[in-house]
């Protein structure tokens, strides 16, 4: 009797595994090709990917990263062509172009490219526009839990106030957080002068006491759970946190904010180029971009989509950063390896 029970149990485990394996085999795709996607966490909705799979029959494999440097490391460590599409930010696009790591994107295949606002095409990090297609962008802004913090917070500099010891969540991203420190001192986020950087380091280290958590994956979690009352993180994360807890407010810093734009790129040695093009084109559709913004409310360069989104997008300062914030803001740029080494050393000292 007991032996029967064991065999039944083993059979159940076996069955569960078989279900799992068959789920592994058949996703929504009907075998008309595969696509290997490597994207930011919390950035491309599952529903959108499923929609693409249904429409085209292509099976999509998704892997995620939470910092540009992580992405670069993995793409280099894997064999060429392991990923068909990657999602670098502005400065990382520049770096990858310099290292010859990107394939050219055939814009003629992208029938929906016209949906992207003119001001976002041919950016400084990709002047010919041949290597990247803008996806979503935003601001590294400040979030305040006004129920717990009643003082007015208006600038990056405010975050360094010793009053806020052990209450801050910041991005686990050395360019972003060091950049934020540089902005708070009136310097550029791409400062290279070693003397100036020494001062940046001194100020950066004063932040250490205030930071409770370094999180680039889901900084809003700490805000929503109440573990942190102050944050420096992506604007859309703040927008989502605001929806969960109305006490949370977004603040754009006086000094001018950290701006970013993430892009679709195709790495060298891509194995499924046509499928990659189909995917990018699909993401450029107004309805798709609208669905993306509804789930991850970042700054959307797709003007056709923002027209569809209407006032829920345009009137929300967290989802749609005001024009003056964009004008005052600064993008992170590529730096030479010696300067990066200085930034890196600063970061290690901060995090120990």
């Amino acid at each position, binding site marked *: 009797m007991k032996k029967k029970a064991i065999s039944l*149990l083993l059979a159940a*485990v076996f069955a569960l595994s078989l279900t799992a*394996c068959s789920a592994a085999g058949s996703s929504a795709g009907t075998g008309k090709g595969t696509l290997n996607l490597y994207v930011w966490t919390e950035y491309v909705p599952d529903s959108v990917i499923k929609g693409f799979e249904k429409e085209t029959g292509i099976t999509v494999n998704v892997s995620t990263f939470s910092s540009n440097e992580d992405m670069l490391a993995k793409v280099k*460590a894997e064999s060429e062509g392991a990923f068909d599409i990657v999602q670098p930010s502005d400065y990382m696009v520049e770096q990858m172009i310099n290292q010859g790591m990107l394939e050219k994107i055939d814009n003629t295949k992208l029938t929906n490219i016209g949906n992207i606002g003119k001001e976002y095409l041919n950016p400084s990090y990709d002047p010919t526009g041949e290597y990247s297609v803008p996806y979503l962008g935003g601001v590294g802004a400040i979030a305040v839990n006004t129920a717990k913090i009643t003082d007015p917070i208006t600038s990056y500099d405010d975050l360094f106030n010793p009053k806020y010891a052990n209450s801050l969540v910041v991005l686990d991203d050395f360019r972003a957080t060091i950049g934020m420190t540089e902005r708070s001192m009136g310097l550029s986020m791409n400062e290279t002068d070693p003397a100036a950087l020494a001062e940046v380091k001194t100020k950066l280290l004063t932040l250490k006491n205030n930071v409770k958590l370094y999180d680039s994956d889901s900084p809003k979690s700490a805000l929503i759970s109440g573990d942190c009352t102050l944050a420096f993180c992506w604007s859309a994360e703040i927008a989502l946190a605001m929806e969960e807890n109305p006490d949370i407010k977004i603040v754009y810093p006086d000094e001018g904010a950290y701006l970013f734009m993430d892009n679709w790129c195709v790495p060298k040695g891509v194995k499924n180029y046509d499928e990659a093009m189909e995917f990018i084109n699909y993401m450029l559709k107004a309805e798709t971009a609208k669905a993306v913004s509804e789930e991850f409310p970042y700054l959307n360069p797709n003007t056709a989509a923002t027209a569809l989104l209407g006032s829920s997008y345009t009137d929300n300062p967290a989802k749609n950063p005001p024009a003056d914030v964009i004008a005052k803001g600064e993008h992170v740029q590529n730096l030479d390896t010696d300067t990066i080494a200085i930034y890196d050393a600063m970061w290690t000292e901060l995090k120990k």
Partner: protein
Amino acid sequence: MKNQSKKKIGKASNTLYCLLIYLFLFLPIAVIVVNSFNATTAKPYLSWKGFTLDWYIRLFDNAALLSSFGNTMIIAAVNTLLATCIGTLAAVGMYKYKFRGKTVIDALLYIPVVIPEIVMGISLLTLFSKTSIPRGMLSLILAHITFSIPFVIFNVRARLAGYDNSVEEASLDLGANRMQTFFRITLPVLAPGIGGGALLAFTLSLDDVIISYFTNGQTMTFPLKVMESIKSGVSPDINALSALILIGTILLVVLTQRTSMNKKG
């Protein structure tokens, strides 16, 4: 009289202490199981919003999660099979024969057991990238076998200590060849050691995080999928799956215990 009550207090405090330790061990399990019934809808899924069985049902719609679990099961099964075979053969061979380089092999065996997993992980990653071995199921299985073999060998060796060769010799004298002797005489004696090693290999494979983290390429295993979910908030269907796995393993252990106790009786 005083001694009696002292003893009673002593016993009570002992029991209390053990209960507290068990509480400590099972607390996160309780959290996982309770949260699997949590009707919460928004990340990070922390606040309690009511009771529901939804997640157990929705679990079977989550293809990515199920396929990662499937991958883990396949890897664990293949790993256990191969590691047990290689390890058992090796343990017996090393016990019987003396040859040069034995001490070197011994030393190499201890390395995966003793050094921190992170070093094993990165060294294997380095190997795979230099030799262009594709990262995915293959690299995962190779990595898992590597850290499992020593455990199999140590367990089998423990059984071999004090093993009496004479039965084997008798078998050979009676005309059986080496193969038959090995399978009919040696293996059954070693069975508990082999079983222990195999169980260890399977368990280590199921829960491996660090080594898999470096050698997986894009293949998702269950622990790695959990790691990814932790970043954005663990959705309760993962809790549901974990609860199911836990129940399954407990039942398996209870039943095997009962069977072996029955056999003894």
